[in-house]
Structures are given as structure tokens and as C-alpha cells.
């Protein structure tokens, strides 16, 4: 019910919203929760396990009951807390976990079966038969017990991520946080003040009290205005700091546009990573309930929340209220209710000898039960003289306050128990650079919050080397807290601890009886604290009950581990920008457009995209295109973009010595203008990568790597240069993207080039494996006479800006000579015909010996991997070694990944003789060819063996042959 008052709602700006399809009115400044209460809606959800009716319990992000779903279709957003969801025009919210409706929920039957649903019920009951778990029990339980659901569709809503740096991060903008931020900002520190509310001020906005002679909320607004005017302060409203990480890094989620009807291009949420040299945790405290029979009825709320609804939103949560507590906050709540004109039917104080000056019916005793169907109707009060029933539709409860210390414990720290406040407080130093202040530090009066905020800021300023100054601390209330611990009221029936996961006092006692005495075991057995609210208002009560049940003190029992995030953070926000292309960026070669225009299907090679083949009119299968393109290279000339291969520029007087150390072969002896094939090992003796390296000058080499290994090889070379051989004088620079490089391969390759080069070449100026500078059309280019096809071939490289035009030119010229562009399929067939290896063969477990390149390991020098490659076993004849394969059986196909067995042997793991790594149909030879590894391979050339592909169900017999199928003498490439 809305009441008169001057809270933080704007009565000049009414809003319309709907809940479960019914339209309601509210005001700007309302949360969904305050607006529902203003409309006398008390039943807002059904509980997780028993489907009991539940109402709004708190006024903050700790809310366990009032979870709603907002939005439709793909944008459906479940489990939003009504207590932090700001009302906006047209907001459509729906209740959760009920069927068919909130008011009439069939699964409320679960509540009648509650005697069977205690702790460990699922574990004990659904054990047998085993196969039923996945198919029957789990889906059934998941449907019955739960929260809101995602749509299952891809959501196009925008999220964002951002980074910030500051001297001081202040977490929370209540009296302590505001005082800390103001003190630090005035001393010149770069300050970020983050607060999860839409209005800064913390409890000052919820209480009826004065600070510095003015209303608390006005003082807060003044400080915020001062801070906003300062250049060195960033105010972050609606931003919850969610975690503390190493090195002064904090995660925070900002709700950018959850509170506006038409967000436009604004992201819904932004996930921040804030790096702070110092931080102050001023996150306040969370009020805890008291467990008594049926303490979960709609209408039963936290006392501090009742004050917040009265004072900030001018909403009376009921017409007749009972207040129950074990600290002075109960009296404050009764006073605020009276001031708002709400009937206080009873004030119940659990403390011994308590009295009151308020004009209300006073009871020294406990609330021991509640009644009502879908909301509170009456409260039972136990005193020395017996049990009395009082009619009420609102019960405000305070069991005391727990400092919001979660962030301080995120790096594994355990808090200290403070008997003064009957609560845990942060131990200093648990997160380096972070100090707690105010209520988060167990200082509960406003005056002490202000003082601690200023002190914490002064300490941080001193650490930062800034002058702390003398802050002007305003006068504020400094009343005693005066708590007598009360966790649960004894009695029959169920008394709730964890409202979000439906855990009762009985469940915790049962866990203790069944020997789950450790707080971590009790948590997992009962699910206490495992819901999205992570037990914010229930964990301390639960472990107090466990302590009692196991005869230990609370500090002996200890807390469970606090882990980020402090509040649920949507994956969409945390992973913002990392969907689709943000997750896997696309790298395009300079010939990409021309290849796509030619109709080439592009395939992924790491992040690169490369043409698979270039279809010609009339071709209906990729094999037709591939066979034709292989023919271009074997018969005329083919063009292929090879720019994706890694290129590393190596310069310096010791470049040659460096290459001798990283390659198995010698490169210091390579002549300028020549290119050599190099094999690179890992230090464990296995092959890392291969490629050609050209000597462009006395002190200048250009290395090529495979496409996949470009990054790892660069990293490896830098490690060798800096970490192993800093004595060598050279520098490395990756230039992969600076040069566009094209293979020009085939018998007519020189003819094609000589049509384009400013100065024609011949076999003398560019012999096999020669390299050097050329010009075409006045452009400086590099030409390498190297071949990955076994034909007379070149690779020509130009600065990347000329790549597109050169590719188009080369392709046109090749077509005029009876050839054309070829793609990855043809490139693969061409290299298999020649027995050239790729990472299909050098897959990380093969040695130089395995691939028949043991002769390339120089005996004259040390090199990376040399010593380990000589270990016993790495040069055994019996190892699986590279061979060629061709089918001889009825099935004429080979498949990569198939395994090899002796003819006649059973195709089992024990009989495995090797495996197939690369296959292709060779149009040159007219049959399938393959490469593979076979035990004693080279000794078995001519043998017939059995190939079995268990996955694809392909089986054939093959002849073992030399891996070089075509032109074994190599005359075509040299000619």
C-alpha cells in the first residue's frame, strides 16, 4: 500500500508495468518489488523444492524469493531479482517455477510430501536402477525443482566489456564508501566509486536519520554531487563489484540498460575489469532472518527491508505489522512503522530484560510460528506466560546483521568471528591492497561508518604516497547495536534457513546426525547456500545451527569458501565480444576477394580462410575441380596463394649461427641467393616444424614456417634467442602479413613469369632453390625457386598492398597458358604425390628418423633437440615410419585415420601396425594414394597389408610403397 512521504520515488512520473499479465501502476524510482508491494501483491514466487508460496523478503540483491523472468522469446531473461529491477514503462515481468499459475500451483503437492523430501532425499531415493537416473529421475526432478528458464535461442541483445584503472576503488556508496571516496578524491587520488544501487547512499536512503544536521539521504546526495564535479572521480552506479582477483584486479557488472524501456544501441550489461592500486570494501551488511516454524510466508520480511520500503519507496508492506528481533533494529522498525501510520500489533524482543518506550503491545519472547494460506494472516508469540496469536499481515524480522565481507574472502581468506556483533568480520590483508570499512567491517553505527570510511581512505592515501589531509566527518547517530544471538526458535514444524534452496533447520540437524559435520559437507548434503543467492542471508544461521547440533562453537565450525561472483553475472556479460567472430576472428589473404568472386568455397586453416578449389562451369563435384587443378600444375601452370605460411625476417651478424642452432641442418654455410629446406625439432627430439629459409644477404635470412606453426615457431625462436643464446647478435621480426606470396608452379611457370618480370630470368639467374630480388611493373618483389608440388616452380612475394592485383594478374596469365588458380585440395594431392609432409605427418609424436630425414641431422654441431633425439628408442628400426600406400583390394579408396594390420591379422589394437595420415586421389597416377606410418615401414616396401577404418567402416588391402609416388628422381623440379 502506497503511503504519504518524501521518499525517492517521483510521483510526477507514473509508470505502467505488468506482472503475470496483469497491469499495475508504479512510479519512477520504484523497483519491481516496491511497486508490487504498493499494489498489495504479496505472492510473487514459488519455492524451489516444495513450491511453497513466497513473497518479497528483502530490498536488495540478496533477495532469495522474488525472482522473476523479464522479456520474451530469445531475449527472455530469467531469475532477475524484483528487489533490484528498476521499474520502467512497459516492463513485463513473470513469476517462475509454478504450473499452471502462481496462484494455483499443482506442484505445491510437493509440500504435502515434504516429510519424504529431507536432506539427501535425491541421493537416497533415486539410486536404482542406475539407468533410470539420466532418462527419468533427473529430467523429472529438474522440471519439478527449479528457477526460471532460458529460451534456448541465440540472444541478439548486446553486451559489452570494459577496463578501468584507478588509484582507489571504493566498493559501496553508503556512509563509509562516500566518506572514503570524498577523502581520497580531495587528496587527488584517481577514485572509482562503484555501487550496485541506482541511487548512491546505501542505508542512508532507507533510514530515517540525520547526518551532519540534514536528512541522511540529502547528505549522501550532496556528497555524490561533490564527487561528480571532480575530474579524478568516476561514479559507477548500478555496478556490482563481483569478485576480487590477483594483482588488484576486480570484476564488476554494470547494468547499463536493464532499467530503460527502449535502450537503443546501449548494451544491456557491461562487464568491467577494474585494476586498482588500493581498494576499500564498504559494501555494508546483510540482515539475517530468524528460523521459526513457517517463517517463509509472504508478508514475512527483513526488518531493514520494511524500513527501506517505508522510507525510500513510501510503501507500507502491510496494514498491521508485528516486529520481531534480537537487536535495537526491531525498535527502530516499530518506530518507523508507527510514524508511517501502520498499526504495530506487537513488538517482540528476544533479548532478556528488554523493554520499550514505544506505545505498542510489547512482548519479551519469540515469534514461534505463522499462519495464513498464501500470505501471512497471524503470528504466534511465545512468552513466559504462554503462546499468544496476533493477527498481522506483515512480520518484520531482524536476527542481526552480517558484514558483507564476501569480496574480502575471494582469495581464499577465512574471516574472524566477532562475538560483539555475533557475526564474521574480514581479517585484514586477506586481499592484498583491500581494506574493509564501516558495516562491512562490523562497525554498524552511522558515525562509526563515516569515521572508518575516512580512516581507510587516509591509510590508502598514505600507501599511495599522497597527503591524507584531515577529513571533516559530519555528526551522525552512534547508537548501540546490542545484539543477543538468536538463530532458530525451537519447536515443531519446518523452520527455513535457506529460502532459495528450501533448506530447513531439520535438514541441517539431519546432516549432522548422518555425520556430515564439516560445514562444507553439510552444505553439499543439504544444498544450503548453493542457490544463485549463494546463501547471502542464510549461511551464518545454518552454520550456527550446525555448530549447535555438533556441540561446537561457530568459529570452530567455520565458514564455507567464499567464491566470486558476489551476485549472479550473466555469461553474456562476462563473455561479451567473444561470440562468433569475436571468438574466432577471420584472417583473409589478399586474394580472398578474387577467390570468392571465382566461386571458390573457403575453408578454415586456423583463423585463416583459404580456397578449397575453383569450380569451372559444368563441374558438379569438388573432385572434378581438384583433378583439373592438379593437371594445371603437372601440365601447364597453376597459381596458389601461400601467404598464410609464416614468414620470419632474421637479421644480424649471428643470424646464420642462430639458424644452425634451431634447425637440424646447416644454414650459416648457405650462399646468399640460395634457399634451403629446414627441419626444426623440439628439445625432446620430436619434429616441431619445417619450411624453407632463404639467405637474402650476408646478415639477412627469411624463414618460412607452416601456416599452423607460425605463432608457436616465432615464440620458440624468441625463447632461444633471449633465453638460451643472448650471446648471439640478431633480431627476429614476423612479416607474415607484410608480404603476399603466390606459388607459380608447373612446366610453364618460367614462361608465365618472364611475361611479367621487368628482367626475364633463366636457369642460371634462378636455378633450383635460388632466390633473389626482382621487379615487375616497377614493384620490388622477391622470387624463390622452391616447389611444394615437385614441378618447376616459384614463389613470388610482393608487399601485401599489391597482393590482390598480382593474384588476379597471375591467374589471368596462367589461364592464358592453359592453367589457372588451384586450391587447397589440389595442393594437398600434389604434395602427397611427392611424399612431402605436413602437420598430418609431423603431428608432434614423430621424429626425424620416423619421416626418413635422419640424414638431415647434422653431426657437426649442436642443435635444439639433438641430444634427446639420440635417446634409446627414438631411432629404433621397429618404430612406425613413413611409407606410401596404394589400394590393391576391391575397395579402391584409402581414408586418413585408418589403421594398418598385417594381412590376415585380426583388426584389433594389439595387432596395430600403424596408421594412415594423408590420402588423396591422384589424377596423375589414376588411383588413390596415401601416406602413413608403419612399423619397420621402409623395410616392408612391396608388402601387402590390411587397412581398416573402424570409424567409417572402410576396409581394403594396400601395397606398401615409397612415399614419393611421382618423379622420385626430382628431375621435374630441377629442370
Amino acid at each position, binding site marked *: 500500500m502506497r503511503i504519504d512521504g518524501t521518499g525517492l520515488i517521483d510521483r510526477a512520473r507514473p509508470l505502467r508495468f505488468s506482472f503475470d499479465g496483469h497491469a499495475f501502476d508504479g512510479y519512477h524510482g520504484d523497483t519491481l518489488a516496491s511497486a508490487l508491494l504498493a499494489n498489495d501483491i504479496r505472492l510473487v514466487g514459488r519455492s524451489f523444492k516444495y513450491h511453497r508460496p513466497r513473497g518479497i523478503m528483502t530490498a536488495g540483491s540478496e533477495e532469495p524469493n522474488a525472482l522473476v523472468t523479464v522479456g520474451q522469446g530469445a531475449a527472455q531473461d530469467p531469475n532477475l531479482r524484483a528487489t533490484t529491477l528498476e521499474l520502467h514503462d512497459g516492463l513485463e515481468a513473470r513469476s517462475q517455477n509454478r504450473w499452471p499459475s502462481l496462484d494455483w500451483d499443482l506442484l505445491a503437492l510437493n509440500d504435502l510430501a515434504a516429510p519424504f523430501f529431507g536432506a539427501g532425499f535425491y541421493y537416497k531415493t533415486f539410486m536404482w536402477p542406475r539407468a533410470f537416473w539420466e532418462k527419468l529421475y533427473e529430467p523429472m526432478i529438474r522440471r519439478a525443482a527449479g528457477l526460471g528458464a532460458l529460451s534456448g535461442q541465440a540472444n541478439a541483445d548486446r553486451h559489452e566489456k570494459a577496463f578501468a584503472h584507478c588509484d582507489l576503488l571504493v566498493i559501496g556508496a553508503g556512509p563509509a564508501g562516500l566518506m572514503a571516496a570524498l577523502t581520497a578524491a580531495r587528496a587527488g587520488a584517481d577514485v572509482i566509486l562503484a555501487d550496485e544501487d541506482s541511487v548512491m547512499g546505501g542505508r542512508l536512503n532507507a533510514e530515517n536519520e540525520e547526518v551532519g544536521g540534514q536528512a541522511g539521504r540529502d547528505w549522501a546526495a550532496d556528497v555524490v554531487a561533490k564527487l561528480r564535479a571532480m575530474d579524478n572521480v568516476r561514479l559507477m552506479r548500478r555496478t556490482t563489484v563481483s569478485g576480487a582477483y590477483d594483482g588488484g584486479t576486480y570484476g564488476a557488472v554494470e547494468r547499463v540498460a536493464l532499467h530503460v524501456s527502449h535502450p537503443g544501441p546501449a548494451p544491456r550489461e557491461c562487464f568491467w575489469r577494474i585494476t586498482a592500486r588500493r581498494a576499500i570494501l564498504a559494501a555494508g551488511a546483510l540482515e539475517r532472518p530468524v528460523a521459526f516454524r513457517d517463517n517463509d510466508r509472504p508478508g514475512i520480511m527483513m526488518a531493514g527491508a520494511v524500513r527501506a520500503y517505508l522510507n525510500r519507496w513510501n510503501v507500507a508492506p502491510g496494514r498491521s505489522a508485528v516486529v520481531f528481533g534480537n537487536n535495537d533494529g526491531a525498535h527502530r522498525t516499530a518506530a518507523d512503522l508507527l510514524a508511517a501510520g501502520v498499526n504495530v500489533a506487537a513488538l517482540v524482543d528476544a533479548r532478556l530484560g528488554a523493554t520499550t518506550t514505544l506505545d505498542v503491545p510489547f512482548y519479551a519472547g519469540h515469534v514461534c510460528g505463522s499462519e495464513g494460506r498464501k500470505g501471512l494472516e497471524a503470528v504466534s508469540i511465545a512468552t513466559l506466560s504462554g503462546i499468544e496469536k496476533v493477527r498481522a499481515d506483515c512480520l518484520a524480522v531482524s536476527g542481526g546483521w552480517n558484514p558483507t565481507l564476501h569480496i574480502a574472502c575471494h582469495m581464499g581468506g577465512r574471516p574472524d568471528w566477532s562475538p560483539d556483533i555475533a557475526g564474521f568480520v574480514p581479517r585484514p590483508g586477506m586481499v592484498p591492497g583491500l581494506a574493509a570499512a564501516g558495516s562491512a567491517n562490523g562497525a554498524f553505527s552511522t558515525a562509526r561508518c563515516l569515521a572508518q570510511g575516512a580512516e581507510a581512505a587516509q591509510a590508502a592515501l598514505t600507501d599511495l604516497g599522497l597527503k591524507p589531509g584531515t577529513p571533516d566527518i559530519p555528526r551522525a547517530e552512534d547508537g548501540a547495536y546490542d545484539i543477543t544471538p538468536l538463530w532458530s526458535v525451537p519447536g515443531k514444524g519446518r523452520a527455513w534457513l535457506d529460502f532459495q534452496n528450501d533448506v530447513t533447520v531439520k535438514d541441517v540437524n539431519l546432516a549432522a546426525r548422518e555425520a556430515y559435520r564439516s560445514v562444507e559437507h553439510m552444505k553439499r548434503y543439504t544444498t544450503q547456500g548453493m542457490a544463485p543467492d549463494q546463501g547471502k542471508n542464510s549461511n551464518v544461521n545454518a552454520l550456527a545451527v550446525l555448530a549447535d547440533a555438533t556441540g561446537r562453537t561457530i568459529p570452530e565450525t567455520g565458514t564455507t569458501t567464499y567464491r566470486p561472483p558476489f551476485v549472479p553475472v550473466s555469461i553474456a556479460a562476462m563473455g561479451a565480444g567473444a561470440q562468433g567472430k569475436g571468438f574466432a576472428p577471420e584472417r583473409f589473404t589478399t586474394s580472398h576477394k578474387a577467390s570468392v568472386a571465382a566461386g571458390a568455397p573457403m575453408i578454415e586453416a586456423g583463423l585463416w580462410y583459404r580456397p578449397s578449389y575453383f569450380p569451372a562451369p559444368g563441374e558438379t563435384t569438388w573432385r572434378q575441380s581438384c583433378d583439373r587443378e592438379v593437371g594445371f600444375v603437372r601440365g601447364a601452370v597453376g597459381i596458389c596463394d601461400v601467404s598464410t605460411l609464416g614468414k620470419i625476417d632474421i637479421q644480424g651478424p649471428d643470424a646464420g649461427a642462430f639458424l644452425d642452432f634451431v634447425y637440424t641442418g646447416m644454414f650459416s654455410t648457405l650462399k646468399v641467393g640460395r634457399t634451403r629446406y629446414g627441419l626444426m625439432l623440439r628439445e625432446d627430439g620430436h619434429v616441431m616444424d619445417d619450411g624453407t629459409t632463404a639467405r637474402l644477404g650476408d646478415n639477412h635470412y627469411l624463414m618460412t614456417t607452416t601456416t599452423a606453426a607460425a605463432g608457436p615457431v616465432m615464440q620458440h625462436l*624468441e*625463447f632461444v634467442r633471449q633465453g638460451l643464446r643472448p650471446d648471439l647478435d640478431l633480431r627476429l621480426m614476423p612479416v607474415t602479413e607484410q608480404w603476399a606470396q603466390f606459388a607459380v608452379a608447373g612446366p610453364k611457370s618460367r614462361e608465365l613469369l618472364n611475361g611479367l618480370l621487368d628482367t626475364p630470368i633463366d636457369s642460371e639467374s634462378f636455378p633450383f632453390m635460388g632466390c633473389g630480388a626482382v621487379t615487375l611493373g616497377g614493384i620490388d618483389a622477391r622470387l624463390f625457386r622452391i616447389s611444394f608440388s615437385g614441378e618447376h616452380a616459384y614463389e613470388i612475394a610482393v608487399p601485401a598492398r599489391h597482393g590482390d592485383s598480382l593474384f588476379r594478374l597471375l591467374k589471368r596469365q596462367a589461364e592464358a597458358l592453359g592453367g589457372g588458380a588451384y586450391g587447397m585440395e589440389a595442393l594437398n594431392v600434389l604434395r602427397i604425390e611427392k611424399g612431402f609432409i605436413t602437420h598430418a605427418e609431423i603431428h608432434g609424436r614423430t621424429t626425424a628418423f620416423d619421416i626418413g630425414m635422419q640424414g638431415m641431422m647434422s653431426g657437426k654441431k649442436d642443435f635444439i633437440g639433438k641430444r634427446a633425439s639420440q635417446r634409446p628408442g627414438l631411432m629404433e628400426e621397429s618404430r612406425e615410419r613413413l611409407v606410401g600406400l596404394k589400394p590393391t583390394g576391391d575397395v579402391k579408396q584409402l581414408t586418413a585415420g585408418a589403421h594398418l594390420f598385417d594381412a590376415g591379422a585380426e583388426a584389433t589394437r594389439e595387432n596395430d601396425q600403424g596408421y594412415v595420415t594423408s590420402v588423396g586421389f591422384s589424377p596423375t597416377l589414376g588411383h588413390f594414394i596415401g601416406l602413413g606410418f608403419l612399423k619397420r615401414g621402409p623395410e616392408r616396401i612391396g608388402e601387402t597389408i590390411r587397412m581398416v577404418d573402424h570409424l567409417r567402416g572402410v576396409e581394403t588391402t594396400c601395397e606398401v610403397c615409397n612415399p614419393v609416388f611421382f618423379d622420385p628422381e626430382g628431375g621435374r623440379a630441377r629442370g
Partner: protein
Amino acid sequence: MRIDCPCCGARDIREFTYKGDALALDRPDPDAGDAAWSDYVHNRDNPAGITRELWYHDMGCTAWLVVTRDTRSHEIAAVDLASAVKEGVA
């Protein structure tokens, strides 16, 4: 976690790539024997405490760094250039 790169200043962990123990800098002589080589290639300690490890600043200056870190607290005691460590000047 943040690493204070000697070239670039304090940077977020995501700019760096981890390699392993800084033992990798102490490559044995070719004729140091099987035991020394086996230790170098394969054997690493896994301490609960101070460890020296190699990080590569691949999103920054491409320097290899030796980071002295406490595995219990992630506290970083020192960050040195691997080249300086290797040459005995760090």
C-alpha cells in the same frame, strides 16, 4: 593477475603466455649425460611456495621473462628479462 614487465610496465595476465619452469634456461652441455638431459627435458618440481617461471609477453614487447612467484598466494616477488638472467646480470 598482473605482471610488471620490465619493458612495458604492469600488464594484465592475458597479454602473457606461460611456458613453464625457468629451469628451461639452463640447457645442459651436449655431452652432459643422460641424467642431466632427462632432468632438463622432463623433470619439474611443483612447489607450494616460491617458483621461478617463464612468461612470454606476446601481446606486448615479445620479451621472455623470469617471474618469481609464490604459488600459494600468487604474489610476484620479481620479474626479470630472461636474457638478463641468462647472461647473469639480473
